[in-house]
């Protein structure tokens, strides 16, 4: 019997009058405390000309606010031994700091100060422009990043999921400080945020602190819901990229359900059968463990047979319909056409026959075990509580887990048939140019 994720996390949830959702998860034994602020704002809220704004704001929230001049946020946390960072996704942006438990007041003060009053000064925005360009250039050095970016551009012609959260290169060059401040003032505030505090702290005392410091903030932040709907695909699309790399790379995507779609649990099971795990419920930091899954269908069909050195699937459900992806890196000297044919055969097989009873039992075991182990340490608790709060109402994680564990074989087969139906596929082939001498 799986323990309920909610019971494991043991969190208290409440909403302040200004709209801020708060989750407090005390762990008396924990030597640390972890503070997370999640904004329901990500690249989905951008538009052409301001792509990358959410990510840029993420950088700027470390560059000064009324009580913390540039550099002081980093110093305040790191000097006491803490760690802090942030990340931007399509659907949300998250900021976190984990500190020794007795230093909890520091990150709470920082988050309250920058939630609505970050400075985003002109000079700092300009200086950060080259840092962000450099971050993107570093990612562009990886064929996997280039293939993935191309895949989403192919799949989406209207919905904002068509650009990467780092933003388009052209927009990184041209976005102005004024536009960035407008974006920040429009979306960032208690109404669009969730505050999570996890770790070693007295709950009543911290609840009073939170109500006092965050309760003073104005109730700002316009509705970040995106109403743009991507039309159904009307045929397969494909593209070929060429550039430096090791061996050919194949990235394939199919339209997949949104997180609140009743079809999502069966799509998650499909992901585990094909790729070996779901990152929604797995042990380990943040997105869980990664690695090889020799019992998965893609691994057996591509890696065991010598066609590929890596092969996996990924379905990370988002707020809007996104992609179910399969990626494979060809083995040296293997033509990408053979890899593509093998992928087609695997997805065709699961769509015709569904998983075996043994495969479904293994999926349930993995998901159940992953859910049990996912809440170790204050930082992981903060991550998971905030992540699921971004994607659904209270209790969403528990309901999703139960739904996944109830999925039947016929549902997986039907879901595979719907996802992998003809005319819904996007595909990127990455062909390396040249070749190094490694002898």
């Amino acid at each position, binding site marked *: 019997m799986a323990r309920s994720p909610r019971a494991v996390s043991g969190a208290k949830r409440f909403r302040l009058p200004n709209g801020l959702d708060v989750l407090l998860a005390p762990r008396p034994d924990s030597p640390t405390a972890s503070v997370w602020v999640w904004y329901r704002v990500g690249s989905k809220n951008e538009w052409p000309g301001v792509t990358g704004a959410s990510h840029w704001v993420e950088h700027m929230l470390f560059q000064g606010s009324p009580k913390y001049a540039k550099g002081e946020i*980093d110093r305040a946390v790191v000097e006491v031994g803490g760690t802090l960072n942030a990340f931007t996704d399509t659907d949300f942006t998250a900021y976190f700091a984990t500190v020794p438990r007795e230093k909890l007041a520091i990150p709470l003060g920082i988050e309250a100060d920058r939630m609505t009053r970050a400075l985003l000064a002109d000079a700092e925005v300009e200086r950060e422009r080259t840092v962000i360009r450099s971050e993107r250039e570093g990612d562009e*050095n990886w064929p996997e990043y280039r293939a993935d970016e191309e895949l989403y551009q192919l799949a989406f012609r209207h919905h904002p999921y068509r650009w990467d959260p780092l933003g388009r290169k052209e927009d990184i060059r041209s976005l102005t400080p004024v536009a960035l401040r407008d974006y920040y003032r429009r979306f960032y505030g208690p109404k669009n945020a969730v505050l999570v505090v996890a770790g070693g702290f007295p709950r009543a005392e911290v609840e009073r602190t939170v109500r006092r410091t965050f309760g003073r903030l104005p109730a700002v932040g316009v509705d970040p819901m995106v109403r743009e709907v991507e039309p159904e695909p009307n045929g397969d699309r494909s593209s070929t990229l060429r550039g430096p790399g090791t061996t050919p790379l194949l990235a394939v995507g199919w339209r997949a359900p949104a997180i609140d779609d009743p079809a999502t649990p069966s799509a998650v099971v499909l992901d585990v059968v094909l790729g070996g795990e779901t990152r929604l419920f797995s042990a380990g930091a943040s997105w869980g463990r990664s690695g090889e899954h020799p019992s998965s269908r893609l691994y057996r069909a591509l890696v065991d047979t010598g066609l590929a050195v890596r092969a996996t699937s990924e379905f990370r459900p988002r707020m809007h319909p996104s992609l179910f992806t399969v990626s494979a890196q060809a*083995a040296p000297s293997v033509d990408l056409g053979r890899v593509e044919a093998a992928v087609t055969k695997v997805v065709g097989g699961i769509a015709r026959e569904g998983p075996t009873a043994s495969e479904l039992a293994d999926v349930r075991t993995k998901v159940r075990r992953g859910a049990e182990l996912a809440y170790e340490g204050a930082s992981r608790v903060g991550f998971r509580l905030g992540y699921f709060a971004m994607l659904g109402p209270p209790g969403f994680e528990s309901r999703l887990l139960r739904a996944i564990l109830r999925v039947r074989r016929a549902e997986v087969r039907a879901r595979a048939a719907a996802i992998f139906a003809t005319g819904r596929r996007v595909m990127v082939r990455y062909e390396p140019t040249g070749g190094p001498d490694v002898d």
Partner: protein
Amino acid sequence: MSTERTDPLVIARTVRSDGLTVVRQAAPAGSAGFAATYVGPSGWAYDPAGREGTAVLASLLAPSAAGRRDRVTLARELDRLGGSVHRHCAPETNEVAVTGPAAELRALLGILGDVVLRPRFESDDLERVRRQVLERQLREATQPGHRAERELLHAVFPSGHPYRASGLGTRRTVRAVRRTDVVRFHREQTSTAGGFVVLTTSRPLSEVERLVARAFDGFPRERPVRAEPSPRASPRSSVTRVVPMAGRSQTEIRVGGLAIPRADPQYPALYLANEVLGGRSLLNRLFQHVRERRGLAYHASSDLDAMRWGGYWTAQAGTGPERADKVVRLVAAEVRAIAERPIGSSELDRIRESAIGEIPLQLETAGDAHELAVDAAYHGLPDQHWREWPSTLRAISPKAIRVATGPVYDADRAVTVVAGPESVRD
């Protein structure tokens, strides 16, 4: 109750009559998991000549078929128990670790014993990991970051030195490795002598010893006599290598040189110097001067790799090709400054207190804490090493740091590598 029973910063160890060292560390309070690692003296320094890459192949094969289980059965059993096997191959050692729920410690330790002692090295598995290693060789050669690191180590260490290689061998040597080579390597290099089993758990040492004895039953006791590698390296003159890599977006910069072994008495002083230069997240000089003040790069940092036989230091940054020259000059200036000028007391205090303050963060999970125990065990550090680490750091003066840094961060002997787009330099 004695301190080592409950304090994850204190380890307890016992050396068995067969030479195996068993180390026990208390799991952090409230931890739901455990971690166990076997550390064997079987890194790529011991690769047979002409078969370079054997140690890495053996390491990659570790979580494959073992004992009575084929590869898929093993994977399914790990999933059923909620465990994971991790492996890491380094110049000096091969490590195999297992993590999982504390309640499944006994069963998962049994799997670790099988994986370490009874790998089947099946031919199909060898061919699979051989393909993966050949692809990794290509990645090392074509990724600017990997390529710059490889070039740096080639320039710092002489031919034949175990730190010079990445362990991946060459296309020729990896293709030459036969199953019998891997089996022989495993047989000759896996023994109780010189090996460690480190366990992070709430169970007492006496029980840990029993569990280890049961899980590692049949451990070969004697290691065949073998020549230790001669890892001597001498500082060379300063050199700059430019590696043009067409079609890339970002230039990767590495500056580095020889350092000291982990057990050297000057290590704590050099550790602090590296933290000031580029090790301490966000506070370090490279990050502050290259990124925060000038906005020239996304990443800028430094590392100190101190191992048993020696070590090396690296300062690194990634930037656009048009800014590469400027960043190289800035990195070189910071390296020179750390060697030639005393670190101010307020800066040193900030960095030092940060390093001390982060200790609780290293105890969030059993897996986090375990890394401390493995480090202390392998390098022969005192049982109380991590408990005493704060006072060790507080005893280090700016003068002691200068004494330690002068011969190491020597700009006249540093190697600089710039790898990236062809337009990188004039």
